[in-house]
């Protein structure tokens, strides 16, 4: 139980952290998906995780929200050790796979999640309206999810993760397949949430999105190879965009 004590001490030091990971590690058979990940993400941060396919982003998030058992190490969200129980009401999670009910309508999906978070009826109705207009699905609220386009399904899934206006949002590639115009709208919304003190952890493969984050963590082979504000990362590598910065860090990591 050494690690959990370590985490506790850390929390006392930095009470403002929404998400903390300590030497988080996951092996699948012989494959190391995440190897010793340390994170501390202060409340009110828009945190971007980038890294190539298979670098362990999804695995790390799943362990933090408690859906995957870590091989070793630990994670805490809002002061509770993973797997969470009391704090589940305060987090929202949009998995990378669609993970909404395709045999229900958009609105029925939202209602399900709204009820699971025990939302009041009035609050829920207001919230549903706002979210549907944010993801531009107001017109399609009564369509079965299976009949939506790929990008629309992603949008519906995002809305489900945000229905209860959670303190901490884990969004695993929320903008995949979403058209540019809506993406701009999404990021505006994320910025608003942040301004209201919410914490958002986002994975993405779009560098322009990453550069809108407060802090970017670069993952490679299950490790964090660099972390900092986007300008900082570019400055330290003398590059002009995050893509080049990532390549530079990758190269440094491999030698």
């Amino acid at each position, binding site marked *: 139980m050494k690690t959990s004590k370590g985490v506790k001490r850390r929390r006392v030091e930095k009470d403002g952290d929404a998400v903390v990971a300590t030497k988080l590690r996951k092996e699948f058979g012989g494959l190391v998906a995440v190897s010793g990940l340390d994170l501390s993400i202060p409340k009110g941060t828009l945190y971007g995780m980038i890294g190539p396919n298979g670098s362990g982003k999804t695995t790390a998030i799943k362990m933090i929200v408690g859906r*995957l058992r870590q091989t070793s190490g630990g994670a805490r969200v809002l002061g509770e050790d993973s797997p969470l129980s009391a704090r589940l009401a305060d987090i929202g999670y949009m998995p990378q796979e669609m993970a*909404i*009910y395709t*045999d229900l309508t958009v609105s029925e999906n939202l209602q399900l999640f709204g009820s*699971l978070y*025990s939302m009041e009826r009035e609050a829920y109705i207001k919230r549903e309206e706002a979210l549907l207009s944010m993801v531009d699905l107001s017109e399609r609220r009564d369509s079965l999810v299976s009949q939506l386009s790929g990008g629309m399904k992603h949008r519906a899934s995002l809305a489900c993760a945000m229905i209860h206006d959670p303190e901490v949002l884990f969004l695993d590639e929320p903008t995949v397949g979403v058209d540019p115009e809506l993406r701009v709208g999404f990021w505006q919304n994320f910025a608003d949430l942040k301004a209201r003190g919410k914490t958002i952890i986002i994975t993405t493969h779009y560098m322009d999105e990453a550069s809108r984050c407060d802090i970017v963590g670069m993952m490679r082979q299950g490790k964090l190879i660099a972390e900092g504000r986007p300008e900082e990362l570019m400055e330290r590598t003398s590059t002009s965009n995050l893509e080049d910065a990532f390549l530079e860090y990758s190269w440094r990591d491999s030698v």
Partner: protein
Amino acid sequence: MKWTRVLAIARKTLRSLKHDRRTVGFLVLMPLFMITIFGYTFGGSIKDVSVVVVNLDESDGNSSAAEAVLAELRAGGILKVERVYLLDPETDGYLGATDQAALVGSAVSEVESGDAWAAIVFWGNFTENVAQSVEDIGSVPTGGPGTITVYIDASNSNIAQAVMGEVRLTVQEVVVSEYHVLPPITVAEDRVYGEGAEFIDFFAPGVMGLAAMMVTFMLSIISFVHERSTGTLDRLLTTPATEGEIVAGYALALGLVGLIQSTVILVTAVALFQVQIVGSPLLVLLIIFVLGAGNQGLGFLLSSNAKNEFQAVQFMPIILFPSILLAGVFWPIEAVPDLLRPVSYFVPLTYAVEGCRSVMVRGWGLGDVWLQLAVLVGFAAVMLLLSALSLKKRR
């Protein structure tokens, strides 16, 4: 355990069923189909069984006992007399032993070839022997009784029993009506339960349990394999919904599906086959609901061992066959071989069928079927508990 969340899960499960028209159709029509098919095949009584008759009796006309029995057999309706082999009138009733054997031989060959189920032979001196035996009543018999031999194809024991029963009964009747001899002993039947009950009354409760069990198990295992593979289950578990609430929500939804099906079966059975429900239909539905909830749990447990829908379906026969064969759906548990009988008592359907049958045919109440209900509640509780626990285990 928060009921609003249980209800939310139940509602979403029923809603996704509702959107799938074909599945809704299946859920309603399958039990309808089952009870109708079973009802028409097993429900009817045996009639028009093809038989041939050999009449070697030397007395003929009004005095012939053989003719009297034959006429009664024809009138009964259970047997259909295709052909009667008679003595050659030209030889004035007399035939040598070889010719008699040949006559019987051709009748039996009709049974052998499958054209008739039985060959009924009235031997020579039939009437004479019957009359003599009647005269001898009360004193030392001077000869043998009139003899009828039935050469029977007993490959179908139901038919064989029906034929033998009909012949015996007819003979008794003729003895009374023609010779005015009353049998000295009669056995009276007074039904304690099942007044007017037929075979369909026996198996309708079984079919009901079977349909509910099949469908709740199938829906449960397929739904959960789907929930696992699409990641929705993981997502549900990142909300405040607990494992217990998710499992309870599903149990509630699928229990209701079982209820709807049982209602379809009950209504069909009553309307189409005049099945009687002596006890409370609500108690029957309660039993089915608990059975459905338990099977939902069983389906859930097995779903964690299936990687996809295809593997899930492979569990169906494993669960289904013991239930169909050993739970007393179509034949009583008393007919299950000793070796397998203990297995019957481990099949939950056994208790559901027994419970429903007792309520429907015997008119028993809650106080009489509490044991069956308790076993089912126990089964459901254990299944749902294990399901919730198995959800707690993370990869």
